[in-house]
């Protein structure tokens, strides 16, 4: 049966199929080395103290000089849900979900940043004035 089928292909046919196969393999390799998805990175005084993917729900307790700030990751967004600072600016900053988004609890020395992720998800502005 196989020979009956083989006979119906020309040399060029086989070449084309082989080349397309090469392309398939190449595309697999390419897809494998694409940059990772969005990550939440938390820094305290310049050191990274926490890192986690944005895609999995998680609660992170981060300690700083004032106490414990809790960052919650849910629905692809990171949010500060509690913090020992006096003015709670960090909690009022809303969710961070896109590459470059920043949350910070300044009194507690914590910076929460979104890194990685797709460039197309960036907001329509480079910087936010507030």
């Amino acid at each position: 049966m196989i020979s009956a089928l083989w006979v119906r292909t020309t040399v060029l046919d086989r070449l084309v199929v082989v080349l397309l196969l090469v392309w398939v393999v190449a595309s697999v390799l390419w897809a494998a080395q694409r940059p990772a998805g969005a990550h939440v990175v938390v820094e305290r005084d310049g050191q990274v103290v926490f890192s986690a993917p944005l895609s999995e729900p998680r609660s992170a307790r981060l300690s700083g000089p004032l106490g414990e700030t809790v960052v919650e990751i849910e629905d692809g967004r990171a949010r500060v849900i509690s913090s020992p600072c006096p003015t709670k600016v960090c909690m009022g900053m809303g969710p961070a979900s896109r590459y470059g988004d920043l949350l910070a609890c300044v009194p507690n020395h914590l910076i929460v940043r979104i890194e990685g992720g797709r460039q197309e998800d960036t907001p329509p502005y480079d910087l936010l004035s507030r």
Partner: protein
Amino acid sequence: MPFHRPIMVLVLLMLAGVLLWPRWGGEGSSEVRRSRLLLGTVVEITALGPDRDLLEGAVSDAFAEIERIEQLMSPHIEGSDVARLSRSDSPQPVSPETAAVLRLGLHLAAQSNGAFDLTLGRLKALWGIEGETPQVPDREAVEDALRGIGPQALRLEAPLVVKSRPELQLDLGGIAKGYAIDRAIFLLADAGVEFASVNAGGDMRLLGDRGGKRPWRIGIQHPRDPQRLLATLEVEDVAVVTSGDYERYFEQDGRRYHHLFDPRTGYPATACRSVTVVAPSAMLADALATAVFVLGPQQGISLLQYYPEAQALIIDSTGKEHQSADFAEYRL
């Protein structure tokens, strides 16, 4: 087997495309983005250009410069010019930089009839707005803290600064941050950086455009809805500073008290919700944003007529939008 040449060409092109694709996507340009906690907020510096090492070095130096200005002008740091001035009774010499900042500040204080003020140190300490436990003080304490403030409170006889009353405490909060940003930009430019942004918690200055390709796009946050924008600006080589009643505040007895005080009343200013100023320097933009916020839309726009190089977007206390004459040119 002899193959038709066009097919070979096609096939080779396809292979080439597959193999070269990753390389075509890349560019000869680097982006260095760093953030640090300075000036009481997150300062983020972004620098673009071909030489990554140069960018990294310049950004590092820029942060060091901001730190230096903070050491010089912060009221909370022991050895700063500002702390020394606040503490002492007699005239004090200050660095030329502090003098320059004071000069603009005093000029603006006079022009704004006291809406802008550099001597609110006692008032801010009274409210505890930058501390752990802010609270609403009683009327007498507020009146006492306002004693002596105003455009006449300080006299600059370079290099000396004379206080009209010994108990006056300086606070350059509405202007020194802008100066620090200007210095950072200066250092970046001096190091050879052509495209950069220095963003201190929403107050920023841009150097050049975004990588030589397009202008910087700056979003202005809506004062009541953090997910919305008031406007998007397309700018290059200018400073954009926003003062808003939503940035730093505390609540007591169901009322909100924010950190931008009206020197004439001693209470948080109520005329505006948000003011964005676009100006050639961050120091000017910072000071004007503070002054206009207190003055309100009508008087604010009048004040801006003295500074044709500055433009503003004002959201008043009812949420209505006002613009200075040429602000629309920046809007996308």
